[in-house]
C-alpha cells in the first residue's frame, strides 16, 4: 500500500478516506447473509485518475458471530489472506462535477489471493470538500476460489452483491 502511495507523490490532488463503507449481501430462499466494513481505505489520485482500495477482511461485521467466524476461518481464510484490494483507473475522471453522475472504474480486484479484472459503475460527485462515490456490483465466489461446503450450498448465494460508499476528503501529505 505504501509503495502505491509513493508513486502518487507527483500527483497534485489526492483524495482519501479511511472510513469507506463496503457491505455485501447474499440472498437465498433459506437465509440472507450480510456484513459491513466501515474501515475501508480508499485513495484517489485526481491527476492520473488512479484509485486504490484496501480492505481488512476481519473488519467485516456480521450480526451473527458464528457467521463471522465461518466467514473468516472457512470461506475467505482471513488469517492467510487478511486483505482484499482493488487497484484501478477511473475512466474520464475530469468529467466528474458537483452533480452526481455515473462513472466507470476498471481495475483488478483481489480477494482470497485471487485477482480478477472488473469494471464497475459508481455514482460520483466532487466538491472542494469531498469526492463521493457510491454504487454496487456483483461478484462470483468461484472467481475468487471461495469454496462453499455442500452442506450450506443452499444458504449462500454464488453471486454476492457488493455495495460501497466512499466520501474521500482532500489529502495533503
Amino acid at each position, binding site marked *: *500500500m505504501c509503495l502505491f502511495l509513493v508513486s502518487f507523490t507527483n500527483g497534485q490532488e489526492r483524495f482519501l478516506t*479511511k472510513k469507506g463503507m463496503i457491505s455485501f449481501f447474499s440472498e437465498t430462499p433459506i437465509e440472507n447473509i450480510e456484513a459491513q466494513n466501515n*474501515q475501508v*481505505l480508499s485513495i484517489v489520485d485526481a491527476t492520473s485518475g488512479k484509485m486504490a482500495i484496501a480492505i*481488512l*477482511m476481519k*473488519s467485516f461485521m456480521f450480526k451473527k458471530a458464528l457467521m463471522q467466524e465461518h466467514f473468516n476461518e472457512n470461506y475467505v481464510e482471513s*488469517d492467510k489472506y487478511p486483505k482484499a484490494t482493488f487497484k484501478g483507473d477511473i475512466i474520464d475522471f475530469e468529467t466528474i462535477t458537483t452533480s452526481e453522475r455515473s462513472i466507470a472504474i476498471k481495475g483488478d480486484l483481489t480477494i482470497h489471493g485471487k485477482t480478477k479484472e472488473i469494471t464497475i459503475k459508481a455514482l460520483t460527485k466532487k466538491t472542494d470538500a469531498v469526492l463521493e462515490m457510491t454504487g454496487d456490483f456483483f461478484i462470483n465466489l468461484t472467481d475468487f476460489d471461495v469454496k462453499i461446503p455442500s452442506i450450506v450450498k443452499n444458504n449462500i448465494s454464488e453471486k454476492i452483491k457488493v455495495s460501497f460508499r466512499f466520501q474521500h476528503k482532500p489529502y495533503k501529505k
Partner: protein
Amino acid sequence: MKKITIYILIIGLLSIFIGYTMYHKPHINVAKKPVDINITANTLLANFSSDETKANTKYLDKIIAVKGMVTNVEFNGEKVAISLQTKEDFGSVVCYLVKDEVKKSAAIKEGQEVILKGICTGFLMDVILVKCVIMNSK
C-alpha cells in the same frame, strides 16, 4: 424400550439446544475478556510497518490493550474512532469504539493519554482495532 426413547429424546433436545445456542452465539464482549497483549501505540505500529506478515501472525484477532496519546477523536454518526499518536508521520493506531462506549468518549480530549482495549483486524495505513473499550484515561 421406554428408557431408550427418553434418552434419545434428551440427546435430541440437547443437540437442538446446543445448535441453537451456537447459531445465536454472541459476539465477543471485549470488556469482559482478558487482555492478550499490552503494548504502546508506537511499538504496535512500528511492528506492523517493519514486518507486516509477522505482525499479522502476532496481533490479528488478539485482544490488545494499547496505550498512547490521543491525536484525534472523530464522531461519524454513531461511530467513534480514536487515533493514537506514533512516531511515524502518517500512520497511527485507530481504535473504533463499541456503541456502548460512545458516551464515555465525549470526555476524551486530544493530547490525553489513554489505554484502549480492542481486537486487532490488521494494518492499512494505520493499525486498526475494533470493538474498543476505554480502559482508563488520565
